[in-house]
């Protein structure tokens, strides 16, 4: 079983070795061909820690004190400023601690949270809850922004986690240019609104790319049946409308009734077109094939999934194809045919289907209509009337004027909400919005509404963040330490194994077998729990092996003792195991206590140590008590000679 879980680790190692022998184009092709294999091996293998592999480890802290200042009702109050300044001297700036100290300071000055936060009707605990929510929100927002950027940067297996309420640990394996990454992590999020290139414009761009790409490639390679489906995709898409739309919140109440009606109408029309398209497919394909002769092949548009594109009303492509599409769009020959005022962006949302993840591609106007700095607030709520989630968004006066002009000129067109180049939503503008208050509806779930609100807020208020710890390990140092670490472990293990055989003869070789099984078990357990192997982890493994040797020594010495009193071998073994049991259990359980405490209180590397230690204790108990005992029993039953030196 351990071997089963370890297989991916071995397979990944093999694949990477194969990959490293290839260069340039070849390696890209290899990745493409073996994508599935590489991916499944990657997912199941034991991950190497940053100290073994190289990479970057950053701890960011959301500045709770700054946040307390920003969200206060009376920001400029002298006393508040003084209290907050005093708090900056705190040694422990984790969130719970800061809040407690803040309340204590307020109390010293005969003040309460209410003096600076919350509504008149709120009581202290409500205000405290609200403050906590605000901090949570800021941290989540920061994590969202970081995750998005790290994903786009293309770091393999990034780990982003929240600790201590206001800290974010970011681990980026294999990153070798820390300065770039730091900028990536810390820069303020850029939120923009872009109009979509729709209808004719969109089709023309896609066709131009198709033509240019076809020129580049061997045309005979693409079968003609692919063309048909993609052309239907284009056709379908243009007839469809996105479900999300944007309306003025001010007019919402007065127009409640009419709005409901329109939504109904748009729905039924959608169904109708749906139906029409389905029944007419034969006709459609006929016409498209007829057009094909003039259009030529469509190597680019064929990368989008026709069925999903139709269902989601966009250009939907699978994860594998996204890579191809991006590569195509980077080619100079293709860039030449793309209009200058156009950018391509992918949806944040992933659509899981047919065992793959899909994303929607948007073709946007390059020049943003607005930037997120005009947004003053964004919230998500559930519409009381129809029980659907929506997001409301408020803008400052400058933004309101622009927004009114933009929405007025683009009714029934779509406007994408883009954060750091990723499209989070692309609602249809339904009315001219003059009051600055907009409502975005059509989110399928509350989760998505929440995400969109967070995205909109990140334009409103950048979370104040600070780096408090940062470690970069160059890949060569990682290699060095893995080599010395593993080499010395193997030497040590070999010496111990040799000693056991010399000292306990047959018993010793069984103990060595148990050691080997132990190593496999620990690695297997780590693979199952997707734990990371670090240098202290290797140290933990060695300690575990020390304990495994100890357990066997303990049992064997007991057996020898019993044999000395003249008992037959079989009885001696039975009694030896039985008597050694209480000592083994007690010593292992005390180690479990230390292991658990280390796991809870240790940070990064020490945690790694605790994980291997705990895994080792578990597997050791099993191998020493069950497996070796079983081997001795079998050997005795078969009448083989068993000796303990």
């Amino acid at each position: 079983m351990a071997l089963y879980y370890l297989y991916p680790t071995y397979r990944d190692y093999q694949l990477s070795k194969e990959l490293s022998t290839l260069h340039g184009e070849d390696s890209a092709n290899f990745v493409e061909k073996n994508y599935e294999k590489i991916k499944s091996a990657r997912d199941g293998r034991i991950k190497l820690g940053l100290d073994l592999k190289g990479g970057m480890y950053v701890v960011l802290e959301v500045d709770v004190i700054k946040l307390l200042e920003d969200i206060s009702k009376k920001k400029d109050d002298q006393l508040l400023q003084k209290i907050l300044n005093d708090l900056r001297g705190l040694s422990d700036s984790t969130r719970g601690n800061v809040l407690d100290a803040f309340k204590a300071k307020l109390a010293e000055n005969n003040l309460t949270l209410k003096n600076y936060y919350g509504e008149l009707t709120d009581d202290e605990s409500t205000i405290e809850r609200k403050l906590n929510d605000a901090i949570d929100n800021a941290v989540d927002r920061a994590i969202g922004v970081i995750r998005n950027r790290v994903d786009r940067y293309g770091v393999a297996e990034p780990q982003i986690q929240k600790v201590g309420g206001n800290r974010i640990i970011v681990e980026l394996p294999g990153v070798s240019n820390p300065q770039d990454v730091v900028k990536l992590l810390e820069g303020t999020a850029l939120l923009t609104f872009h109009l979509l290139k729709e209808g004719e414009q969109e089709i023309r761009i896609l066709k131009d790319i198709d033509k240019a790409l076809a020129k580049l490639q061997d045309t005979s390679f693409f079968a003609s049946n692919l063309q048909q489906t993609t052309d239907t995709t284009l056709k379908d898409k243009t007839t469809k409308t996105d479900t999300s739309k944007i309306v003025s919140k001010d007019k919402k109440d007065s127009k409640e009734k009419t709005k409901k009606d329109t939504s109904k109408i748009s729905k039924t029309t959608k169904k109708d077109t749906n139906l029409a398209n389905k029944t007419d497919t034969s006709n459609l394909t006929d016409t498209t094939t007829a057009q094909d002769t003039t259009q030529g092949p469509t190597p680019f548009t064929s990368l989008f999934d026709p069925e999903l594109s139709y269902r989601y009303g966009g250009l939907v492509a699978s994860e594998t194809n996204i890579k191809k599409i991006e590569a195509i769009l980077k080619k100079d020959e293709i860039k030449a045919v793309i209009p200058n005022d156009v950018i391509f962006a992918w949806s944040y949302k992933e659509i899981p289907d047919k065992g793959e993840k899909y994303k929607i591609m948007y073709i946007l106007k390059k020049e943003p209509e607005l930037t997120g700095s005009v947004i003053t607030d964004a919230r998500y709520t559930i519409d009381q009337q129809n029980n659907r989630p929506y997001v409301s968004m408020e803008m400052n006066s400058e933004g309101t004027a622009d927004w009114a002009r933009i929405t007025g000129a683009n009714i029934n067109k779509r406007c994408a909400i883009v954060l750091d180049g990723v499209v989070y939503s692309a609602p249809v503008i339904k009315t001219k919005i003059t009051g600055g208050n907009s409502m975005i509806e059509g989110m399928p779930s509350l989760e998505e509404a929440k995400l969109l609100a967070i995205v909109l807020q990140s334009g409103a208020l950048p979370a104040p963040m600070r780096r408090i710890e940062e470690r970069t390990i160059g890949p060569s140092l990682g290699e060095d330490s893995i080599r010395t670490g593993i080499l010395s472990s193997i030497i040590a293990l070999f010496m111990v194994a040799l000693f056991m055989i010399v000292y306990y003869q047959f018993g010793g070789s069984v103990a060595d077998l148990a050691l080997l099984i132990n190593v496999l078990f620990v690695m297997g357990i780590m693979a199952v729990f997707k734990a990371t192997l670090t240098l202290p982890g290797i140290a933990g493994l060695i300690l575990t092996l020390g304990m495994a040797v100890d357990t066997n020594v303990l049992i064997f010495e007991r057996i020898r003792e019993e044999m000395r009193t003249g008992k037959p071998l079989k009885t001696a073994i039975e009694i030896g195991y039985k008597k050694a049991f209480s000592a083994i259990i007690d010593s292992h359980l005390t180690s479990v206590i230390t292991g658990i405490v280390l796991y809870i209180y240790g940070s990064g590397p020490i945690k790694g140590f605790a994980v291997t230690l705990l895994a080792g204790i578990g597997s050791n108990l099993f191998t020493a008590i069950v497996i070796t005992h079983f081997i001795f029993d079998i050997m005795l039953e078969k009448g083989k000679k068993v000796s303990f030196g």
Partner: protein
Amino acid sequence: MRLFESTNINFLGKRRIFYLVSLSIIVIGLITLFIKGIPRGIDFLGGTELQIRFEKEVDVHTIRSFMDNAGYSGMEIKTMGSDKDLLLRTPIQKEGTKVSEEIQEALKKSLPDNPFQVLRIDKVGPKIGKELTQNALMAVILSLIGILIYLAFRFQFIYAVGAVVALFHDVLITISAVAIFHALIPGLGLELNSTMLAAFLTLIGFSVNDTVIIFDRIRENIKLYKNEDIENVMNKSVNATLSRTVITSGTVFLTIIVLLLFGGEVLRSFSFTFAVGIITGTYSSVFVASAIVVDWKHHLLKKGKVN
């Protein structure tokens, strides 16, 4: 092959001498600690640390003068392994990665014909060190309490006390050894960092393991020899487990020596600390943990209470 079979050494009779030995080591160690101290690593101090590999060999003194000119005077600079590998460390805190950028910039300017590769950069904010210390203390205290409760439950309370005192003893002795060795051979590069912290915690685990095994035998033997003096029973138990003690401690010690010799700079603090810990952990099981139990039981006997 057999080692230490049927020995009959009166270990506990000599416990008073060993109390003295332990105490003097701890006293000397702590005095050294207070006078000389153990250098604290960047994990505890905060600051920026760079490990750099140059293409050609460099001279530490010239690098130091370059750094002084760049505004980083008093920086700790030392070679690691070879004269091409340098470790630079400064407690100076600046916004973001500024410190490491400035250092790299200064090195590039001063040594234009000796390009280098950055192996590692650690930047630790000033608050992390305090937190790490707090967490480490918390971890040690909680493990000790956990062990105390567990052993009190499995044995008797006085045994648990003996084991925990032995653990304190081991930690103190090891700290003393680190301080003394650092004072004698500063070149070892011992420093208090999170790896050494891990070693201390491992040591606690190992020491209590050893103590528990001897206690287990005492628990068993007390039932067998009901009328004998506790000191005799304990001696019997220590002798009975002697060969396992020596073999186990010996093999683990061997493993750690291998790590100490071949494990490289990164593992050195860990292996040194743990190597000392194995010796004192083994020793303390008999001469501290068991000895305390013996003295306590004798004390009870004198008072007329038989337990």
